[in-house]
């Protein structure tokens, strides 16, 4: 990061007021920033005026009950949806209208809530393709793909890391669910993105596997000095690894702070305990 000073354009009078917290995040060099994001689907406002600063090297979680707009917000950050209003900045660059595939080249990697792999290709090919995506060789149609040894080696390294070495030459479709989630992670990691956006990575997993995955995510972040944005339904999952937590409800930003601040927050407790989702906070009370 060349230390470029980033100033978001002033959109409405509200922006003129900059809180202490905003000043801090400007100085610590924000890696991803959302500015007054709004997304409407017909008459429904799914995300309403949400702003977000993510500091580099941290785990920033977005939580909220069902229908809170977390996934819509996630899709706005990854570019799957275009916002009705507002902007998204990555390392100071306005990426609101940057095409999906360009974002991968900028250093953003995303996972999907549902398993999203290339089912009839081998595990190795799944990972090799992701490595090749950021390489010039994709426009070579005379040499054999597996003759680009560095890409194959790199793919094997990551496959080893997530523990799929024995299954490297099997079609991805034969993997068990947990194996597919691991492959998903390998596809994400092989491109070595600076920012990982994970959409409910624990979805559909047996609860005893969840701590292991959370630990893996944290190890990856620490080793590679990466930033992680984590969208979760289950509050319990994010409490231990997050540096900051954003809570959403009904499309709006409800609260933001450290895990301790969030678990002490009265309005957050009301949303989680008062609504249908009392179970979501249960785990935290035992700790």
């Amino acid at each position, binding site marked *: 990061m060349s230390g470029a000073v980033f100033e978001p354009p002033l959109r409405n009078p509200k922006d003129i007021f900059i809180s202490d917290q905003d000043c801090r995040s400007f100085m610590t060099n924000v890696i991803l920033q959302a500015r007054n994001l709004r997304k409407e689907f017909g008459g429904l406002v799914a995300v309403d005026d949400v702003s977000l600063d993510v500091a580099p090297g941290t785990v920033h979680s977005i939580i909220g009950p069902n229908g809170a707009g977390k996934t819509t917000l996630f899709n706005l950050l*990854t570019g799957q949806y275009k916002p009705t209003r507002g902007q998204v900045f990555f390392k100071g660059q306005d990426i609101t209208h940057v*095409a*999906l*595939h*360009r974002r*991968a*080249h900028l250093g953003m*990697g*995303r996972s*999907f809530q549902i398993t*999203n*792999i*290339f*089912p*009839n*290709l081998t595990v190795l*090919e799944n990972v*090799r*393709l*992701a490595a*090749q*995506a*950021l390489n010039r*060789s*994709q*426009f*070579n*149609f*005379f*040499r*054999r*793909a597996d003759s*680009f040894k560095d890409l194959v080696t790199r793919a094997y390294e990551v496959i080893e890391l997530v523990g799929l070495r024995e299954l490297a030459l099997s079609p991805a479709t034969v993997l068990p669910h947990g194996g597919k989630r691991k492959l998903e992670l390998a*596809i994400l990691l092989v*491109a070595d993105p600076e920012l990982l956006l994970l959409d409910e990575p624990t979805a559909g997993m047996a609860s005893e596997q969840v701590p292991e995955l959370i630990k893996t995510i944290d190890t990856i972040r620490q080793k590679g000095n990466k930033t992680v944005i984590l969208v979760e339904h289950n509050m319990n999952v994010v409490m231990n690894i997050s540096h900051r937590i954003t809570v959403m409800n009904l499309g709006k930003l409800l609260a933001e702070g450290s895990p301790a601040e969030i678990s002490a927050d009265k309005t957050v407790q009301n949303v989680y305990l008062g609504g249908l989702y009392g179970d979501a906070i249960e785990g935290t009370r035992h700790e």
Partner: protein
Amino acid sequence: MPVSWRRTLQSNWFHVLVLLFLVMFPHLVGWITGDSPLGVGGRPRGQSVFWQLIFIELFIFAILAMSYNLMFGFTGVISFGHALFFGMGGYILGLVLEKTGAASEVGLAAGVIIGIVVCGVLGLIIGVVSLRLRGVYFAIFTLAVAEMFAIYIGRWPVTNAEDGFVLSNLPAFLNPARDRLTYYYLVLILMIFTFLFIRRLINSPTGSVLLAIRENESRAQSIGYNTLIFKLLSITLAGMIAAGAGMLQVILTKKVGPEILTVSFTVDPLLMTIIGGVGTFSGPVIGASVLHLSERIFNREFIIGSMSINIGQNWSLILGIAFILVVMVFPQGIVGTWAKWRAGKKTTLE
């Protein structure tokens, strides 16, 4: 023999056998029936020459089906407008040969190059306009464009509307009515070249992206591929190869008419690809062989005792039933089912 050569030969022994058979075929027929492959009594007659025609048609269909498979089987793009490229290739070659007044050799070279380039550009334009549409919408769009061309050219006075026109300006060496054996080998070589080109392409880094798009386009996008570019590449290459097949067809029949733009030149390669095996290298060739040969063999009157059955009249009906059976029982086609069966056998042995 170097080791790499031996390995290539070992893994391709079946292809090499088929190739040897096809090279020998006119002579084999000639040897069995006693009719020379060059014709009988100085004229292109006899069993060998007759079977050469059937196999030339088969090779042209195989090239067309392979180009369709590049798009449909390897990239996952379903188009119902492939006849457009086939027909336009034939028309452009015919127009350059007959309407420009160029010498026959120059006209042939120019017609081939212009035809292939124009069809590539046509594919590019259709792709840019419509590839953002998904699945069935794209298919319907391509069908509409192809039909539009077919209807317009069927009424165009320059090409004699529905009658079409005859190719009379072909170079002397390219006259399938006189010297069919030369044309047989020419088309065979072009078919092999197409096969090798597509196999090389699909095994390359670019080809691996095409497969990724077929498997899961949104994922391919999110790991950083501009999938539109690769889909355009696929449709453009497929269009250019189909244009080449159309040119071979008009040289064979020495006639250009709106029938080469009809939807049957989309449906036939589609059926051939599905019956042979979608997304396999040899599937389209095998599908073309099975369909074309069975049509030629069964498309006639059978006399059993006092009863005569004319299958030819009901050929489309039989084809339809065969197609439904294949889709329901062997959706992976002949080659796909065979590969699956062999893989299954291997794993049970281990």
